[in-house]
């Protein structure tokens, strides 16, 4: 039984008389608790695909089913961690997380419970100490942690990560990847992540969805990453399965579907 299902999703952008087919016939099913990455060259429509799942963009034809029900408008059951964190700069870290909590649990939790739940989620990402700071007073990695806390606090059925580590330096990125892995282990979320980093995809995912180049991008190949969890970054470097998976993704991206416009 599919938990999240993209069913024959097409996306066509129309500007005046010019039409561009961005996505063509995307079919993907994701099981509950699965960590799925979407990888592809820039411009292949992977962000569009995530936005369609989030409900921020409408599919031209086809649709998205979550627990057998169609979803076509944004909602907290599909919380997004945005690439550029998108924290509201006039709210403190705490208030940014609380905003979502107040909406989602307006009826089901008391004020005190909502406060406790907000703090609990800030603790999960180790950001409770900065709860009264404003976004411009904390580092990029910290902002992204708060962004993750905000999404987690909405108790989403699916967590959508839109290149969540793209804007971070390599060390912070590694640190945050470990945090996300630990959270996934602990909470068992269903996660759909966009990335363009091969190592990141192999390290974090249960399955890697490889996209062909646009226009009319479609799913070229899906790779199972059969590595046991918890995964340790250092041990994996020499693990034959890891190396093989990495090799497969690299071959797909750089041999079979080279990004011609890049050079």
């Amino acid at each position, binding site marked *: 039984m599919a938990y999240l299902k993209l069913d024959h999703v097409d996306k066509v952008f129309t500007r005046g008389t010019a039409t561009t087919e961005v996505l063509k016939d995307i079919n993907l099913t994701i099981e509950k608790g699965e960590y799925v990455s979407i990888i592809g060259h820039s411009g292949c429509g992977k962000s569009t695909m995530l936005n369609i799942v*989030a409900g*921020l963009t409408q599919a031209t034809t086809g649709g998205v089913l979550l627990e057998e029900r169609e979803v076509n408008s944004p909602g907290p059951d599909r919380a997004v961690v*945005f690439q*550029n964190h*998108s924290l*509201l700069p*006039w709210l403190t870290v705490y208030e940014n997380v609380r905003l*979502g909590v107040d909406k989602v649990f307006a009826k089901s939790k008391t004020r005190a419970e909502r406060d406790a739940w907000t703090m609990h989620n800030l603790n999960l990402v180790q950001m409770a100490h900065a709860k009264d700071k*404003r976004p411009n007073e904390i580092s990029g990695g910290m902002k992204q942690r708060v962004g993750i806390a905000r999404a987690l606090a*909405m108790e989403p059925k699916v967590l959508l990560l839109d290149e969540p580590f793209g804007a971070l330096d390599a060390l912070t990125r590694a640190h945050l990847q470990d945090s996300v892995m630990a959270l996934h282990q602990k909470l068992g979320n269903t996660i759909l992540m966009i990335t363009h980093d091969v190592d990141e995809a192999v390290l974090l995912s249960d399955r890697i969805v490889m996209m062909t180049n646009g226009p009319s991008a479609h799913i070229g190949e899906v790779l199972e990453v059969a590595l046991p969890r918890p995964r340790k970054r250092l041990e994996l470097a020499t693990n034959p399965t890891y190396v093989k998976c990495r090799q497969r993704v690299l071959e797909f991206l750089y041999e079979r579907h080279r990004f011609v416009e890049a050079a």
Partner: protein
Amino acid sequence: MSMPALINDNAPKVVPTASTAATASVVTMTPKQSPKAERYVKMAREVAVRVVPPLIVLALFMLIWELLCRRSGSALPPPSRVFADTRELIFDPFFDHGGIDKGLFWHLEASLRRVAIGYAIAAVVGVALGTLIGQSVWAMRGLDPIFQVLRTIPPLAWLPLSLAAFRDGQPSAIFVIFITSVWPIIINTAVGIRNIPQDYRNVAAVVQLNPLEFFAKIMIPAAAPYIFTGLRIGIGLSWLAIVAAEMLIGGVGIGFFIWDAWNSSHISEIILALFYVGIIGFVLDRLIAVVGKVVTRGTATN
């Protein structure tokens, strides 16, 4: 400033004021060597740096003015005469002999009250209309061209029309204030709303804020820097307009006070009134700037 001018001895006065201000603060603070004292010294220096230069320029200006206008037969009175003529008005701003024979405080109060009412309405209407134009493409297409034409109409041109409509000076003056200050508020608010990053809209969509919450929690804070730019321009314009409007509608108010003084050839009173108008305009502008700074401390730095 004009106090010593009475003694007719301005030249030496300039230097002492400047140097005492600077040295006095330093001397009193240096004995205490605690870091707190040092901080006060630093603060006093910063204040001195800002306050002393304009004071010197002002003193020089007064001096030149005095020299130019002191000879008999000059059209305008020198500062010493201005002070002597308006002594009563300066030291007793609260008298009230009925009618329009009142102290300057009451005239300024009446003008400020009109500005407060007209400007408050303009702020509310301006932000509301600005939000509408910024948010809805159709509202912008329909309203923006009309507003662009209306906003070029000089404030006073509205006065006869509003007198005809309201048949009374008081609401007409308030209307002129409103119509003068509302345009920059509308236009700046609309720009601010249009410039709200898509990211914030996405966040609101995922969290599922309803339109009212979106307005209060996203739109207003995100557009606040723009809104306050409009509010600041608006308060300046309304203070400009009130003096002119009051000259025409009469009654109590600083504008009519000036006009009345001109009719009675009290040139010194005009100069005093202009001084007050300038100071209050400056204070109003600073006031909105400070409020804006406090309100937008989160957004502006981003």
